[in-house]
């Protein structure tokens, strides 16, 4: 009952005209960038972050979160009409969504994607509301050693799942830690890695790194090719976008599957919506009466991954808000946003800022309804965005990146840093280094170093403090196990090979 009271309080916050407007702007922008291939929510949130500094934090959080989950609704449009995923999590939607569109059922595919997103997105918010408060209460018992071990565990999971090569993911994370270490050491005032530049004494601004790696890296990658893909016609009229009763009946299990898988995967750091959508698609195919039809345009093949993709958002908010541990590049940027506004996500967040937490939860309910209303009748309008020529879009993104970075510090030095990080972002894409571990390493680097040093101060330099406390030892053990998992897999494969030969 206490939670219900807080939720009602949250609705009172989210339903103020000011916050409703920011929620609408967030979900609308999110849908637009979800529709645009090559511009993800991480890049958009990073670019818009500087503009939110003058805003009231609750409205700003509501808007940025709206961009995050709104982009997932929009991502399905390009997958279905263009066979090009608007973002990585929409890859699976291409399999059956595009095939449905080719067979003249684009409307039903877009409609079911919107309905699945709504159902699972709402389920994810319910999950967040139920899981976050008890988890935060549990985490209140954590001290510096537990926090350090928890961050090791989170980073290990992100590294494990971030890319094809774990070595490259680890290296990316270490580069992130190094960039975070630039500037003045808060304990001793020693300047580190400043290369004689006074501008670096305060460290590298998060906005510069995030915009450079995500936005510029993405744009340079997309600029490699000149032509865009050919789009199938978007259906017009609400009637043509509504799926049939048969479609809805066929998708009953897919809605549930997508919701559960998406939320659970979302809670785990590093897994993310792409993995959630692949797993839910796999489950749907495994339990289907007609698995051979998957990939030819079955409606469940759209509903399950789209649902998982959207339920993941609620799940991903759980470790972010209760433990202060982001699980992906986008949530890492949200964490940085919280810190820049003077808020500290963690176990005390719900207790200290109930208005913000419950206002955000309530706004996610409202945002999901807004997205359903926006997405069903306005899909033809959003599809028109795809006709925007890239030679107009990319200079605009690069321009807004420069302005965004300059607006934070008013320093041209940061625009030079932006160009350097843009090149780094592009090089990482080309060389198959995942960017999420770098951003996570950068965001967590400072907090991690502080937790490590505070722990060792507590123990007077004794490293066994991390293994003598049960919770810390368990998390460190899990982190080591995760990092060694590929070695176990390799050893097992060699053993099987030896036995069979």
């Amino acid at each position: 009952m206490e939670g219900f009271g807080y939720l009602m309080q949250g609705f009172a916050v989210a339903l103020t005209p000011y916050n409703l407007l920011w929620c609408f702007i967030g979900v609308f922008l999110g849908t637009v960038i979800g529709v645009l291939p090559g511009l993800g929510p991480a890049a958009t949130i990073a670019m818009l972050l500087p503009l939110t500094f003058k805003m009231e934090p609750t409205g700003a959080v509501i808007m940025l979160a709206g961009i995050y989950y709104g982009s997932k609704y929009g991502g399905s449009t390009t997958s279905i009409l263009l066979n090009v995923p608007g973002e990585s999590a929409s890859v699976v939607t291409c399999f059956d969504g595009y095939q449905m569109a080719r067979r003249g059922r684009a409307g039903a595919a877009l409609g079911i994607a919107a309905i699945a997103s709504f159902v699972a997105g709402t389920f994810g918010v319910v999950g967040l509301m139920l899981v976050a408060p008890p988890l935060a209460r549990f985490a209140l018992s954590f001290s510096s050693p537990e926090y350090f071990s928890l961050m090791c565990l989170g980073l290990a999971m992100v590294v494990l799942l971030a890319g094809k090569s774990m070595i490259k993911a680890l290296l990316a994370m270490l580069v992130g830690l190094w960039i975070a270490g630039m500037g003045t050491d808060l304990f001793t005032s020693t300047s580190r890695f400043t290369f004689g530049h006074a501008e670096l004494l305060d460290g590298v601004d998060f906005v510069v790194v995030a915009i450079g790696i995500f936005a510029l890296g993405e744009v340079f990658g997309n600029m490699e090719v000149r032509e865009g893909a050919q789009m199938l016609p978007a259906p017009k009229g609400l009637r043509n976008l509504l799926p049939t009763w048969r479609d809805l009946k066929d998708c009953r299990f897919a809605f549930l599957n997508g919701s559960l898988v998406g939320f659970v995967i979302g809670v785990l750091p590093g897994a993310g919506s792409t993995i959630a959508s692949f797993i839910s698609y796999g489950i749907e195919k495994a339990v289907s009466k007609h698995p051979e039809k998957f990939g030819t345009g079955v409606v469940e093949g759209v509903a399950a991954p789209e649902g998982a993709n959207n339920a993941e958002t609620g799940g991903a908010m759980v470790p972010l808000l209760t433990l202060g541990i982001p699980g992906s590049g986008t949530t890492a940027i949200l964490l940085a946003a919280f810190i820049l506004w003077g808020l500290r996500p963690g176990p005390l967040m719900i207790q200290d800022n109930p208005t913000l937490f419950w206002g955000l939860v309530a706004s996610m309910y409202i945002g999901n309804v807004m997205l359903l209303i926006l997405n069903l009748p306005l899909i033809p309008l959003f599809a028109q965005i795809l006709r925007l020529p890239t030679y107009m879009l990319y200079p605009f993104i690069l321009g807004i990146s420069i302005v965004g970075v300059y607006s934070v510090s008013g320093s041209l030095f940061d625009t030079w840093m932006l160009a350097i990080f843009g090149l780094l972002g592009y090089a990482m894409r080309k060389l198959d280094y995942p960017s999420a571990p770098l951003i996570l390493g950068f965001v967590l680097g400072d907090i991690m170093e502080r937790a490590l040093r505070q722990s060792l101060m507590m123990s007077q330099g004794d490293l066994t403090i991390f293994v003598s406390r049960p919770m810390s030892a368990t998390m460190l053990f899990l982190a080591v196990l995760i990092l060694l998992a590929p070695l176990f897999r390799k050893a097992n494969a060699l053993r099987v090979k030896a036995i069979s030969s």
Partner: protein
Amino acid sequence: MAKTSDVLSGAVLAALGIFIITEARQWEYLGPDGPGPGFFPMWYGIAMVALSSLLIATSIGQALAHAPRPKASEVGRALGTWAVLVACVALLKVLGFIVAFTLFTLFIVRFLYGEPLGKAAAIAVGGAVGFYLLFDVALNVGLPAGMLGF
């Protein structure tokens, strides 16, 4: 044949790791109050050297003759865009954002996308005016000004 890009990137990161360790050695490692500013960098520097060496070793050990090579023209377009961005950043101090961004957009639309000069100029000028109206006028976010004051 080893995957050259992995060997090269591994070598760069190993050099970075050595640099981090060298710098960290100049700072206090352990003091009377606990770990000093050199403690954490020393450990991630060592980890970086170890992992990049492992990356180089595994890349040399692997036969990756079929590894797809990036197309030079594609990489050229991306790096060309980056170079134009760098030129734009360099011009910000002298010409200010409005003029530098106009030239930047003009170059991209005309030379990287091959659109007619008139159309490219219209997009470039329109874009710069749009930025001025949106940021300077509507949002009150100052754009970088040049020697001419705008």
